[in-house]
């Protein structure tokens, strides 16, 4: 059986949605280009027509708002932002409108838009072409935030997002595009049924990641295993609304917690996970203080020299664990 890449899994999610749901359409920058968003949307315009796959002017605000508006009218639109950084122009439609539309009108209306947002960084692209702002969206009630880290989830969370009656930010990371796996047949799953998932069992430390950092956590934990440290690894998958239950149970067992996040530290998802745990376990639960690995407190550097120090990687994680915890 041929393995599927993460990027092809996204493509197959789009394909499934477009084939089965005539209400699905996609708009965003680069959709008619063969290279803009990797090959995650390759030839969709040719297969489903330029009416349903709309490449847009450089107008993130109007395009995002348009997707929100179309979603209010019974469509299932997906708006694509090839970089999360560009979405800073589109915040009103996301936060003031989509996230609140159902609530403001007492549930009479809803805005089931999907906002696909790509984390695209490294390669000396610098401060404005590198950001991972998932924690911002996870701060906002009314908007669901998902970050697939596995190939399977890359496809399945996309499908669940688009079929969700609520607005969803679906965040994929280009650093995951080459991951491969065998995909199971598609089974539609309601997004509200999905929660953080245990990807590896262990009983000495709970490591939590999301998106690319889950992959780092997994890889690191496998190496740790050979050092005799048995880590349990969780993939957040759904960052908002955040359900801490399974992680809580894990920490009660492992008594150690590490969160790895691909975003910034302050007011980030790592602080949320840690706080959600410590406020809910007896104070004598943890053997070591909970820890987080995040980006340093600076914008993304352009320099290759700095990029190496800026981004977490397997070795740094292993070293951090060995230095910070007493097993």
């Amino acid at each position: 059986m041929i393995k599927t890449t993460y990027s092809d899994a996204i493509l197959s999610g789009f394909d499934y949605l477009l084939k089965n749901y005539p209400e699905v359409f996609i708009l965003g920058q680069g959709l008619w280009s063969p290279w803009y968003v990797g090959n995650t949307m390759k030839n969709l315009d040719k297969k489903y027509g330029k009416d349903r796959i709309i490449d847009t002017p450089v107008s993130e605000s109007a395009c995002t708002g348009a997707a929100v508006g179309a979603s209010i009218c019974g469509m299932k639109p997906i708006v694509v932002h090839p970089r999360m950084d560009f979405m800073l122009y589109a915040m009103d439609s996301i936060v003031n409108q989509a996230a609140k539309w159902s609530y403001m009108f007492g549930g009479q209306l809803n805005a089931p838009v999907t906002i696909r947002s790509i984390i695209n960084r490294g390669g000396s692209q610098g401060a404005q072409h590198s950001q991972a702002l998932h924690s911002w969206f996870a701060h906002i009630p009314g908007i669901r935030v998902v970050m697939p880290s596995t190939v399977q989830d890359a496809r399945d969370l996309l499908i669940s997002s688009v079929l969700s009656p609520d607005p969803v930010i679906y965040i994929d990371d280009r650093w995951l595009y080459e991951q491969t796996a065998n995909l199971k047949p598609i089974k539609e799953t309601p997004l509200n049924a999905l929660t953080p998932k245990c990807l590896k069992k262990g009983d000495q430390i709970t490591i939590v990641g999301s998106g690319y950092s889950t992959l780092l956590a997994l890889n690191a934990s496998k190496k740790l295993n050979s050092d005799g440290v048995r880590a349990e690894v969780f993939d957040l998958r759904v960052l908002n609304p955040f359900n801490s239950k399974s992680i809580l149970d894990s920490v009660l067992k492992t008594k150690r917690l590490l969160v790895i996040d691909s975003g910034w530290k302050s007011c980030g998802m790592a602080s949320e996970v840690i706080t959600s745990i410590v406020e809910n376990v007896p104070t004598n639960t943890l053997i070591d203080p909970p820890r987080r690995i995040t980006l340093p407190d600076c914008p993304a550097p352009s320099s290759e020299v700095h990029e190496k120090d800026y981004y977490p990687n397997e070795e740094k994680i292993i070293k951090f664990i060995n230095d910070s915890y007493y097993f």
Partner: protein
Amino acid sequence: MSMSVIRAAEIKIAEAKKNRLVKGPVHLGVGQEAIAVGVSKNLRNTDRIFGAHRSHSHILGVDNDLHKLFAEVLGKNTGFSGGMGGSMHLASKSKGFLGSVPIVTGTVPLALGAGLASKLQKSGDIAISYLGDGATEEGVFHESLNFAKVSNIPILFVVENNLFSSHMHMSLRQPLNTINRFAKAHEIETKLVDGNDVAEIYRTSSEFIRKMRLQPEPYLIEAITYRWFGHVDWREDIDVGVARSKKDLLNWKKRDPIKRLSNAMIDKKIWTIEKQHTLDLKVNELIDVNWEKALKDDFPDRKSLLDNVYKYD
């Protein structure tokens, strides 16, 4: 709904606000009724209409349920938004009024998307985006014009140019006092109309909407008008602006769209002063009945605070 009923409803709300019966801010459109009434006559329930902060007339234009408006303004659970919105958050899904909110220009791209949906659904339905002159200063308005044009989206932008954005007269904010130049820059067919002339508004919107239903394309109507009250709440003479004079207001009141219509009909002998009086009485009764009813309704249940944040629970 007729201009006089809308007028009377807003005056009722103004009084209630003054008497502290209404909790949240209310933005009254008294003086501007002709626009929504003229446009709405062309609409059907499957069209998609978006308003803004000053939208009582926009929703009453297509949904004549006064009780629901009053109840919403009073925050009652029988209101248009189940009491969860108040005056600034109105919706009536079954009539195609898909929402009004107070972020200036916030609904403009949403209406654009609603029009795009219509085009994809090939329904012949159109989108209406009501916005003010101030809203044309937000960049997303211009983005929306371009996108509407380049994607042939059936959306009618209805700009109620009342010359003010809260306290600021147009002349302090823009180089010219009219905005249809923006439509022209985007090659969008547009017409500048007298916003206090319901017949002209009806004619223009009717022509544009007929065309849009056949061939999806954006259009823009700029209706010049004036609001009689201050920017927010019931006062006439404060909160109204750096460049607004009593004299201007009096002159604009002479151009009252309601009196103009009624006088014109009386001149043409298709209406009489007596009939007008009878109508006025009926309108007042209608207002009072619905108001009293709304007053008696309940507030939302305290326990519903967390309801409807998500559709999935």
